């Protein structure tokens, strides 16, 4: 499969701060790749470099076969970038926004395309409403519709579902998969684990560096993480006693149960040993993506210079 995104060693600095540190990323065409990482880890900056909004301070590569720096215009014409913050005009109607985007890209059959897009969105009856009057979920779906109006080959979505309710999120992701089925490559940043699991593959970035790459299962397996679940009376209240114990990367209450994970079995078992009492039952379980990410975040922090 040809690569839609093929960038290597991307670096971006603001003053002395390195926001993105030698990130390499290759994504095959037609794949949905989840881009994960803590806040401020460089996801947005990386996306902006890929779509030509920022000039990398180092590294380079191609996006849809076009050079990242020299062929910005060509990339902009064939990629759709959805900003984290609603980037359309709240004081234009839904229809006017789509028409504006269509005109900027110089699309033919504009009316037809906009009509089609409104139909697909299910906003045909509300097309004369101001975009600012839409709810958060609808705004995001409108922004996505605007992004794909020019039939891009690549979609770069920056936390498109932040603050959106589960039903709207599901609708949004259904649309992402529809586009992927049409052959569009999608790179989408998110904080939601369920969304990460809906991606073909994920890339995890922390403190500017790429930490993990692969399908969700691969990422979990490669982490080598061991997890235990404790059930029983008061199990969920044990978290504070485990959190700082050696060998434990994460201990968190999930309802009445407690999830504990660590990189190695022996130290983890040693840590929970004192808490095997009073009817609390410990069972080994498969680590979740969230466990892995919290673990990776801790690792990255240890490696990050100056922290």
């Amino acid at each position: 499969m040809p690569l839609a995104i093929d960038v290597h060693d991307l670096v971006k600095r603001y003053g002395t701060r390195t926001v993105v540190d030698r990130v390499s990323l290759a994504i095959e065409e037609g794949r949905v790749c989840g881009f994960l990482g803590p806040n401020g880890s460089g996801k947005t900056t990386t996306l902006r470099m890929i779509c030509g909004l920022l000039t990398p301070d180092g590294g380079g590569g191609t996006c849809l076969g076009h050079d990242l720096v020299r062929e910005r215009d060509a990339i902009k014409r064939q990629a759709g970038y959805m900003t984290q913050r609603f980037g359309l005009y709240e004081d234009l109607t839904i229809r006017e926004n789509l028409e504006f985007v269509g005109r900027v890209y110089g699309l033919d059959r504009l009316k037809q395309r906009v009509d089609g897009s409104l139909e697909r969105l299910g906003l045909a009856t509300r097309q004369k409403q101001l975009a600012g009057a839409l709810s958060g979920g609808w705004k995001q779906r409108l922004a996505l519709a605007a992004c794909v109006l020019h039939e891009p080959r690549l979609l770069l979505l920056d936390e498109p579902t932040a603050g959106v309710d589960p039903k709207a999120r599901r609708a949004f992701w259904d649309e992402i998969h529809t586009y992927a089925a049409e052959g569009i490559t999608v790179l989408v940043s998110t904080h939601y684990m369920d969304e990460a699991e809906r991606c073909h593959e994920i890339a995890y970035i922390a403190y500017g560096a790429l930490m993990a790459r692969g399908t969700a299962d691969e990422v979990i397996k490669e982490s080598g993480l061991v997890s235990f679940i404790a059930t029983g009376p008061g199990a969920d209240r044990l978290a504070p006693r485990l959190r700082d114990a050696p060998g434990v990367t994460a201990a968190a209450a999930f309802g009445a149960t407690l999830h504990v994970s660590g990189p190695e079995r022996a130290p983890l078992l040693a840590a929970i040993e004192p808490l095997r009492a009073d009817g609390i039952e410990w069972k080994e379980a498969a680590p979740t993506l969230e466990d892995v990410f919290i673990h990776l975040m801790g690792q990255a922090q240890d490696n990050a210079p100056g922290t």
Partner: protein
Amino acid sequence: MIGAGFWRRLGAILVKEVQQLRRDRLTFAMMFGVPIMQLLLFGYAIDTDPHHLPAAVISADDTTITRTIVSALTSTGYMDFTHRPASEEEANALLQRGEVQFVVTIPSDFTRRLVRGERAQILIDADATDPMAAANPLASAQPAVEQALRRDLTGPLAGHNPKPGGVEIVLQRRYNPEGKARLNIVPGLLAVILTMTMVMMTALAVTRERERGTMENLLAMPVRPIEVMIGKIVPYIAIGSVQVTVILLVSRVLFDVVTQGSIALLGLGTALFITVNLAIGFTISTVTQNQLQAMQASVFILLPSILLSGFMFPFRGMPVWAQWLGEVLPATHFMRLVRGLMLKGADLADVSGNLLALTAILLVVSALAISRYKMTLD
């Protein structure tokens, strides 16, 4: 009604406001820097009683007496005789272009008539578009001339000393014979209103995109800076043109200010001036972070356009450095152009200098705007 809670909550808001203000460095700097700069600038620059105004003299009668008269006029401090045109036409052209404020004409039989004890006349043509600039020099002319003649015509010449009223100075207030301030104000207002609205509107239009977060989306699309700039500016050119039409119509109906010169030239000059202002507004928007800063920066352009352009105070009353500053302002050139066209009936040749100046400013500002506007978010 005011309980302890009131002061606590008030304090909370106060602290928050101060913290926020401190973060917005540019606004903070402008709040203190701009007034001080303006105080110094305008305090030194503005003089409502301008001296050393350029004047031309046509003397067809070169005698001791006429030389005495010219030096008497010079010694009032109001007139500097910078030109000695050979003909009346040449003198008129100087006045029309605004290169001189006064033309003093001494007729060929002046000395003869004076010596014979007849009534001798001197003609002073003044550019009275700005009544303020012309008033004092004209008022001082008659006493200065009489005094000088009394002093100089001594000895054998004493007999020729003119009787009171022997020398008559005929004043002609050109372009604004009644000395009406509004004739001068209306063209100036045109410049000021356009500066105010045009600069501010574009400055805000672009900054708004940044503040609302739509700029990032716009930049991600294949659109070039020049396209954004022209696209943003053109609607305001139309708005500005409507403004001008309304101002001109209203001043015609209510103030009887009738445009003497070519309407087409006025249109051309106005279009150029509007475009310059929009380009300035666009440049401001590339520097400022938010709409508040854009607003303040616009006022920073507006104030000198009112005070240093010759709108409020006579341009020639300012020290040379302030005049140079005024020359850089598009409002100065536009005001001259409009006054020329509306009051003096100027033609293309008379206003071509102003048009050129506006074009030059436009080119410089546009280049600045385009170089500042970034295609990326870097």
